[in-house]
């Protein structure tokens, strides 16, 4: 194994190393408050390795690991997300008497799995990294060890097991038909030009979609989302809603553009239909929610639907043209990361103080904490997709990709869904601003979570006004697409 290969794998190696260090330190350090600080400092290591790799286009371990701008984009995003979540976890984690080190360690392990998912071109590795992240996530979901949390963990375990099994079955079929597990080789070996001509391959592709559909929380693999989101510790929920989704889309883009690129007309329609169903389902169900975490859970299903538009809009990748669809997916994922993390962090900050996650208990929040109410309103407005928040550009970009791909119906469906979603997001704002506060007691923002809130909401507003940097990053990351 040449040293160069190790260097190419250094982001993943170092983040796993950091996880071990934190777990070990937990044994000796009495002041557990130091753990998150150490974690954040040490996360500079994988981030540094990742950034140092920017610009390289290489493969390692016989093509299993790929280092390209696409994978680095996702690694930077994932490390950023986990850093923010660690900062935001501090107050929640302080409620566990034991295993704080494991909590942070598991977050990092899950991230390592997701990073690897974004950086491979090989089905077995995709499966293994998926399992690494899922198993860590299950433990995190159940971390409170109370009824709710355990119930969520168990559900997550069983359902992810089901979807993994289906996906593995699908991979086996693809392997059987093509004789290879490498995405590049699959594209060469695929025997037919249309999926309908080869039922085995079709079955394999649909089963693989099931596995990732579970990760990105898209219809019909979304049933677990509300229960698990509600029961899990809120920082973990925030992490799952953003990081899992991002890595899931990274793999979807890779697998479908690279291995099944020839069948794009088949799966383009599939993703288009899934997109419409996911966003409609998520948005309609969200209208009836009384719990803010459940509301955000259904909202995340709807957003999976919006992002799927980018996958469906594959035809916008005309020869010599720009890959609007993949660009839009990357842009949207980042915008969504800032926005949704921001929303969850504000919810954490409020819920930690008032001890409730019911929307009605947020009544009069504008009086009790004008800052938090204002920032939550900003995030919700961004989730609707209204300027000057970053969510506006993200939606615009994806809808435009659909139009460019001659899928105007998809853009219209997205626009109608955006209008529907405004209803429940605005209802939260209405409760915060117009309902009378039950008490005059102020809700104060404490430093650690305040920092996390500041990081994310600044991004929402900054990239809302100046989306160029982010967009440029996304365009570069997809420049070699499908690489």
């Amino acid at each position, binding site marked *: 194994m040449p040293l160069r290969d190790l260097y190419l794998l250094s982001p993943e190696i170092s983040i796993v190393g950091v996880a071990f260090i934190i777990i070990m330190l937990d044994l000796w350090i009495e002041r557990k408050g130091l753990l998150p600080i150490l974690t954040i400092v040490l996360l500079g290591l994988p981030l540094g390795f990742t950034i140092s790799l920017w610009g390289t286009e290489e493969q390692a371990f016989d093509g299993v690991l790929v280092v390209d701008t696409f994978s680095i984009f996702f690694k930077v995003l994932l490390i950023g997300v986990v850093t923010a979540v660690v900062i935001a976890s501090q107050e929640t984690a302080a409620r566990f008497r034991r295993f704080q080190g494991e909590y942070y360690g598991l977050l990092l392990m899950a991230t390592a799995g997701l990073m690897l998912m974004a950086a491979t071109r090989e089905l077995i590795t995709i499966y293994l990294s998926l399992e690494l992240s899922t198993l860590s996530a299950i433990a995190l979901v159940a971390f409170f060890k109370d009824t709710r949390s355990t119930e969520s963990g168990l559900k997550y375990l*069983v359902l992810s097991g089901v979807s993994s099994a*289906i996906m593995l079955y699908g991979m086996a079929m693809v392997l059987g038909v093509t004789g290879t597990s490498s995405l590049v080789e699959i594209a060469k070996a695929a025997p037919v030009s249309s999926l309908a001509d080869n039922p085995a391959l*079709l079955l394999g592709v649909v089963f693989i979609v099931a596995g990732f559909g579970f990760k990105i929380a898209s219809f*019909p693999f979304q049933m677990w989302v509300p*229960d698990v989101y509600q029961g899990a510790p809120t920082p973990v929920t925030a992490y799952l809603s953003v990081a899992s989704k991002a890595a899931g889309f990274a793999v979807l883009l890779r697998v479908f553009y690279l291995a099944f690129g020839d069948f794009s007309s088949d799966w383009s329609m*599939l993703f288009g239909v899934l997109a419409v169903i996911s966003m409609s389902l998520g948005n309609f169900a969200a209208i009836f929610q009384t719990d803010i975490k459940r509301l955000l859970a259904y909202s995340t299903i709807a957003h999976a639907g919006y992002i799927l538009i980018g996958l469906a809009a594959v035809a916008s990748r005309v020869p010599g043209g720009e890959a609007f669809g993949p660009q839009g997916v990357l842009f949207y994922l980042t915008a969504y990361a800032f926005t949704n993390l921001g929303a969850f962090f504000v919810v954490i900050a409020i819920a930690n103080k008032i001890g409730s996650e019911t929307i009605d208990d947020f009544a009069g929040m504008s009086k009790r904490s004008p800052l938090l109410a204002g920032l939550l309103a900003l995030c919700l407005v961004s989730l609707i997709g209204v300027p000057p928040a970053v969510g506006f550009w993200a939606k615009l970009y994806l809808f435009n990709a659909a139009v460019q791909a001659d899928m105007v119906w998809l853009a219209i469906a997205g626009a109608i869904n955006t209008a529907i979603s405004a209803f429940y997001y605005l209802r939260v704002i209405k409760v915060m601003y117009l309902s009378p506060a039950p008490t005059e007691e102020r809700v104060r923002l404490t430093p650690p979570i305040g920092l996390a809130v500041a990081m994310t909401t600044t991004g929402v507003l900054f990239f809302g006004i100046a989306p160029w940097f982010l967009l440029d990053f996304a365009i570069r990351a997809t420049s070699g697409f499908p690489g």
Partner: protein
Amino acid sequence: MPEFASWLIFLLPLLSFVLIVGLRPFVGAEWRGAGVITIVSILAAFALALTALAATIGNDAHDLGYRPHDWLTIGPLVIRVGLVMDSLTAVMVVVVTGVSLLVQIYSTEYMRGDKGYVRYFAYMSLFTASMLGLVMASNLVFLYMFWELVGLSSYLLIGFWGQGKAAEEHPRAGDAAKKAFIVTRLGDVGFLAAIVWAYVATGTLEIAEIHAMVAAGAFAGVGVTWLALGIFAGAVGKSGQFPLHVWLPDAMEGPTPVSALIHAATMVAAGVFLVARLFPIFEASEGAMTTVAWIGGGTAIFAASMALVSNDIKRVLAYSTISQLGYMMLALGMGAVGPAIFHLVVHAFFKALLFMGAGSVHHTAHTYDMRFMGGLRRPMPWTFATMLVAGVALIGVFPLSGFWSKDSVLHAASINGLIGGAEALYWIAVLAAGLTGFYVFRMLFMTFAGEYRGGAEAEATAESGAAAGPPPRRRLHESPWIMVAPLAVLAVPVLFAGLADLPWDLFGFGAFAMTGFLTGHVETFSTSVAAVSSAAGALGIVVAYSMYVQGLLSPSVLGQRLRPLHTLLVNRYYLDHLYEGVVVRHVLIRVLGLTAEVIEGQFIERAVNGVALIGRNVGRIPVAMQNGQVQAYGAMISIGIVLILAGFWIWG
């Protein structure tokens, strides 16, 4: 002038807004610094606006020609952001910043001690920034965005006293704000539809590009008429034109400086500005021009007639504003952009002065009801003198500014035979000028002449129905200098702004300098038109004098004689009754309310309860495995996969 300096005109008040909002948590609700920040930023913006005007005058094309910047490029879709600085915008930014500056100075005294002092200046800064953004926007999306922001700040300021303790003194403020917001929104629906239509039809939202397409004839016919009418719908709402004028008199529930700045001088003129900015679109459609002219002319006389009988000084001024905005629309409909904007500018000065004068009167009399004023000439010499000057200018008496602007409007009406019924419109406008003379001097006589009739105390006695004893004497006084100074400063342009557009080259400006600057072609002047309108105005003044000073004709007796007409006017043509009583209460509330109730009660309520019920039940069962949910979820996944496969089977 570098482009950045022009941006600052808009950014400075915005910065002031951000700064005040940011500092709010650290200062008290009555922190005086908020006023200082606002005044300093608007003063700087005013200085830059003057520079921009000078640069525009010095420029041959009267346009500094800034190019819009690409904000975001998504393949063929390019979103641009930019500002224009042409003659129209330059004049508007000077008026907006200038009047705003004086109003803010006046407000520091008028709002002193108010619990919402800091909030007030935050809103005022936001309004000023939005209004400047509106007049400087180079494309329809940004124009619309600022258009709505202006509406939002107007809503916030009308309802400024609609919350908490202040609401007890101003019970109608909340409703007035809502009315303003909803009524103007009706017009905005048309405007928004027009923007969408413009993009569909032309593929661009840059105003200059749309103009070029219309000028080249690439976009013509009925499509242009619809576009123009949609835009005009927005203008009708914002500028209080018939039939959407009902919100403006009610908007006087807000603080008086707000009325002066927003509901007299600037925002309500935004509709006129909008038509002027998009004038090539209107010009391309005779139908649209006729509509604009008739709505404008009709509103001019319609609103003036209601001003004849109102006893509330601010409402008289509000009707007068609607009427004058009608004049501007009339001029636009006749194709006279220059006179319309000239009248807009001059009107901004004298109407802001009149409103601030009314606020000054209120400062001493504590009422806006003119039946309880009177005799204020001696205690308030400055207020009286400045309001007299402004009132005379409003009537259009030679040689004040209003004379020149109103006559340029009337002259345009008299010569233009392009549209149907131009002749009739001219005479309507002349009649409205006569009514103006009457209501202005009725207001001045009732306020300043005769004996003092007791102010707020007398009003309270009259309302309670107690025996009208002699009112307790209170020392009547002139307002503090900081309120009077802006009045005096505004009196200067009211007196002399006409010099900017004289028919002769007297001061080296050139004849018709201002209208020429605005439109590029020179107007003409007609002595006969000026004589006719002056005679009409004078007649109005004489009638008012004979009724309210000489007592030759008693207003109450006249009211008795013309009872049907008087009742009609006092009840504002029953339009408010029609809108509120019939349309809102019966149609909207009955139908919509019932629908909403059914949906809310039958559907949402049950669903929410149902969900909550399920949630509770889930909570009761400790282990989820037992209730079969996970199996259900697993089954759902399987069904989903089968459905996808079936989909491929059928359509694949």
